[in-house]
């Protein structure tokens, strides 16, 4: 019973910890850009009817997957769809500049879910990543820094105003869950280490996602096999990131592994691989905002003191 109580006390102590919200502010800015890009894209390409309207309003779907949000608006109609796009774009813009953070995130989230749910064939996991991030931004005080709100309140764009740290932890948990889950589902004989490791060789040539036609030279095949193996191990092993961050958080405790991980900064090595993997995906494939949003969440893996130290280093180099 005492152990349980101690655990609960430790949990509450973790949740009541406060710190400057630099990481979450960076994530908010990128989420704002993502919403602007995702909702303006169909407008710019003149694809709103095709993607989100029923066949009698110029689309191809017999019955869009209208949820309660559209029922409140009287059903799926061009007026309702364009209204949600407009409201979502405004919310995305206010999220980007950091005005009414929670409300902006909530409105952007509801508009985004309502629209993307209409046609589940016209989206993928990038939509789920954006919506999960938006919900965490609803829970976080993301405009305490890096925002117009912060400028109005403190006279500075990036003040170190303390905010609850737990939304930042949840962002990292979400990232780890996403990578681990996708890794565990890559059970194709082309992915697993006991298979032929040809997954990436085939995926980069898949016309559906390719930005341009790719046919790897035969001598590159072993490299694609190595990257396939590394990627699978990296994804399945994503909980290592949580462990590495926990070891940093409890650096005063002993242990050889903790010491080794902290000295090496295992966390940064893990994220560096992710960064290059997403860079590869982004440069070769068209998968929406997935890579950009994923990398944006990495901002939450760093403590505010590390941002301050980085900024101090940059300033001293400039001066």
């Amino acid at each position, binding site marked *: 019973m005492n152990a349980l109580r101690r655990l609960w*006390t430790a*949990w*509450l102590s973790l*949740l*009541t910890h406060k710190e400057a919200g630099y990481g979450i502010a960076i994530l908010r800015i990128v989420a704002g850009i993502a919403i602007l890009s995702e909702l303006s*894209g*169909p407008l710019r*390409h003149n*694809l709103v009817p*095709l*993607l989100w309207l029923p*066949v009698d309003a110029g689309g*191809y*779907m*017999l019955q869009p997957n209208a949820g309660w949000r559209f029922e409140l608006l009287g059903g799926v109609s061009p007026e309702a769809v364009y209204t949600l796009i407009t409201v979502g774009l405004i919310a995305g813009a206010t999220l980007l500049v950091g005005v009414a953070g929670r409300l902006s995130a909530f409105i952007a989230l509801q508009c*985004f*879910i309502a629209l993307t749910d209409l046609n589940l*064939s*016209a*989206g*993928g996991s*990038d939509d*789920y990543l954006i*919506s999960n991030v938006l*919900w965490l931004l*609803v829970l976080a005080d993301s405009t305490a820094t890096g925002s117009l709100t912060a400028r109005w309140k403190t006279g500075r764009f990036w003040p170190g105003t303390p905010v609850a740290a*737990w939304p930042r932890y*949840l962002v990292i948990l*979400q990232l780890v*869950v*996403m990578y*681990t*889950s*996708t890794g*565990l*589902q*890559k*059970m*194709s*004989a*082309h*992915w697993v280490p*006991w*298979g032929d490791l040809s*997954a*990436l*060789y*085939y995926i980069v*040539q*898949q*016309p*559906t*996602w*390719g930005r*341009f*036609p790719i*046919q*790897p030279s*035969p001598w590159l095949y072993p490299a694609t096999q190595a990257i396939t193996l590394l990627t699978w191990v990296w994804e399945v092993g994503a909980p290592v990131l949580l462990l590495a961050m926990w070891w940093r958080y409890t650096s005063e405790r002993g242990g050889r592994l903790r010491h080794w991980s902290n000295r090496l900064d295992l966390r940064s090595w893990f994220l560096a691989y992710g960064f290059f993997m997403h860079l590869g995906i982004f440069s070769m494939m*068209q998968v929406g905002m997935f890579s950009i949003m994923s990398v944006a969440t990495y901002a939450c893996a760093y403590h505010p003191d590390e941002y301050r130290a980085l900024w101090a280093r940059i300033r001293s180099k400039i001066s």
Partner: protein
Amino acid sequence: MSTPIRHHILGVLVALHVVAVGLGAFPAPVGGLNRKTWKDPVVARELDAWFDTLSRIGATSDRDTFEDDLFTVAVGMVKVRSKLIAPFRRYYATCGTTQSWRMFVAPMTRPATLLVDGRTEPDGEWTPLYRQHSAEHNWYADQLAYSRVRPILFRLGWPHYRKQYERFAEHLAGQVAEDHPELTGVRFAWERRPTPKPGKPVDPGTYKRERELIYSLSDAP
């Protein structure tokens, strides 16, 4: 000093969120329970590879039994997952916390690509309007390459999306009529192009056209 009640409430709510996220991401072959799709050559080859691996270590010996057992396990996993996440469904739907991370779970070794052709005379020659990545035949290319249209094309490339493909093609036919009033007909088809194995050259002889749809544009609005 006692902990404020709001901290306990926060502790419970965040814990529930963590549980919801963890359970939602629990891997299960949702969408893979249609045994008709198991006959698709790409899926069948995956099953072959797993059968080979498992039979090598003596875990299975009969191909049909292997498929039946796999189906039973898959159905079981989906059922368990479904029960576990049931209390959180409203949370996922309302707050956007759905955990669906099936990304590139298996490569397509025989991907399909959409072909669009048009003709000016009712019995005339077909000329290409759209070919992916073609600078010459690039009708509607910006739209068809848009990130939200690509997953549609990916799904419609599978034969069991027949009705959606027909409606999608009909929609595109209307667009062709608008952009090319000189055309009397438009033709859609999928070309399945097996990706060459490492070191092997591309062989257009292996390409297979399928599911052709022809629309007359003379009656188009």
